[in-house]
């Protein structure tokens, strides 16, 4: 990990509130693994005070991309960046997704902006020769379904504006009827309520997988102990999302 001032290559607006920010970093592009994140100081002043964590969504040559939704002051400031600006980025951080066992089909399950780590995961799976991914993407409505660089996507929307009418977990669950439990590895990211539903759906079917968690972070590197998630494995009551995660065995954490 390093702290670098990265030049903005491009800011792409994907929806009224969702953007893809492309930054140049030979170092991060060369070392990033899917599921890892970067911690961004959105501007030089002390406001906002803390860095903001974002999954690296994809990489191409010396460029990395983050996809973000404007939810507060920090992401608002990011949404005003333009080529010529530089941004203070710390990364890559955290524990990545690992490749599925031989013969296991990777099933990517994302809710809303939980899609962020999926493009680079898809890319990395392909680099490992694994191209039979199945992706399930859910959102409130079709306007927030971002299928940026995703493959073989099944959509679900709460408002029935695209694809399956219902949650992405319900859609996945129905689909799992058609496959053997041992044959798939789930990769998931999304809001906690969705992840809890997913956990119990998978547990019933004894399907395993990996989940990328989000939580408020102060440092992103293990200094503050501010990002615990309760764990059912090992002797520690809590693991740290920033250092031990953000990717965990989906059945090891109490979300």
């Amino acid at each position, binding site marked *: *990990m*390093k*702290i670098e001032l990265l030049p903005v290559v491009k800011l792409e607006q994907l929806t009224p509130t969702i953007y893809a920010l492309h930054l140049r970093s030979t170092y991060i592009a060369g070392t990033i693994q899917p599921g890892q994140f970067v911690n961004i*100081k959105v501007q030089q002043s*002390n*406001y*906002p*005070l*803390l*860095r903001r964590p974002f999954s690296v969504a994809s990489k191409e040559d010396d460029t990395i991309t983050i996809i973000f939704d404007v939810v507060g002051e920090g992401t608002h400031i990011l949404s005003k960046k333009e080529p010529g600006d530089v941004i203070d980025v*710390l990364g890559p951080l955290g524990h990545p997704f690992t490749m599925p066992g031989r013969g296991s089909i990777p099933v990517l399950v994302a809710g809303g902006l939980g899609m962020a780590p999926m493009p680079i995961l898809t890319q990395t799976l392909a680099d490992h020769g694994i191209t039979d991914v199945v992706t399930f993407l859910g959102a409130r409505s079709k306007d927030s379904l971002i299928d940026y660089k995703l493959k073989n996507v099944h959509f679900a929307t709460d408002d029935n504006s695209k694809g399956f009418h219902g949650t992405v977990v319900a859609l996945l669950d129905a689909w799992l009827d058609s496959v053997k439990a041992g044959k798939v590895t789930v990769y998931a990211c999304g809001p906690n309520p969705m992840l809890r539903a997913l956990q119990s759906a998978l547990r019933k079917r004894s399907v395993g997988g990996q989940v990328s968690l989000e*939580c*408020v*972070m*102060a*440092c*992103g*590197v*293990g*200094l*503050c*102990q*501010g*990002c*615990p*998630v*309760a764990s059912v494995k090992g002797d*520690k*009551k*809590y693991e740290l999302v920033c250092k031990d995660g953000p990717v965990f065995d989906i059945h090891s954490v109490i979300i």
Partner: protein
Amino acid sequence: MTDISTDFTLGSMVCRNRVWVASGTFGYGDECPDLVDVNKIGAVITKSLSLKPRDGNPPPRIVETPGGMINSIGLANIGLQRFLEEKAPFLRALNTAVIVNIAASTIEEYKEVLGRIEEADCCDGYEINVSCPNVKEGGLSFGTNISMTAEITRVLRPLTSKPLIVKLTPNVTSVSEFARAVQDEGADAVSLINTLIGMSVDVKTRRPKISTTTGGLSGPAIRPVALAKVYEVVKSVTIPVIGIGGITCANDALEFFITGAAAVEIGTANYIDPNIAVTIADDIEQYCRNNGINDVADIIGTLQTDQTISVVKSWL
């Protein structure tokens, strides 16, 4: 770069500079070797250590506030045993001052932890975190009770010849009385401030934003409070005062030095840049060079106040 004297000696402890990292904001010093050359930090203060390992509080443990953050980590730490096994060798090998910060819920626990670290001889000094619940007094904080704070100092003082720094809480009416009390019991220095008690509410869920309702406020927001407390203590004790609170750059640190702090600790700012203490130390050296100052010590306590108007002070 060797023209400016930056070092600071506190009893048997020699620090290469006066910019330290604060307890709980730098782990055990081994967390980000990629980002910081730890040996360039004036002193590394470890996360508060308790006798037994502590899991810490349930999430959420932190929330950002205007110019600051509230935390309630619950003193998550690996406990004395694992500390001695896993961290002490690394710390002993460091080529800079190491200060172990100790937290406890009984006087006996303070004694045992300090005593066992003293045996292991793996640090250059101690900082005593008195902002801990005293289990024998129903969980009231030691640090808000002057006689408890004095007693902790009294019982620990004979156990070590290394510098003993007592870290004071700002959540009291008169922090200078606490400083005088621990000075009288033989503390080598006081450090302040620990966090202010703060709280934030999620209006949507009507729940506190951290699991324990209230927590500790830190960061630039509290710097004016920290500086005022340091000013109050500097005027009333003769032992060195270590300034802590919201320092993010050399200018902030200089405010504390000018006010009379002998050294400063960087807390929350480490979360934004774990190398910030080194940068600040370098920038202060540069500031001295630019201003014809040969020794950082020459800045300390140089505040110019207008004595003629101090009588009106308590009218705000």
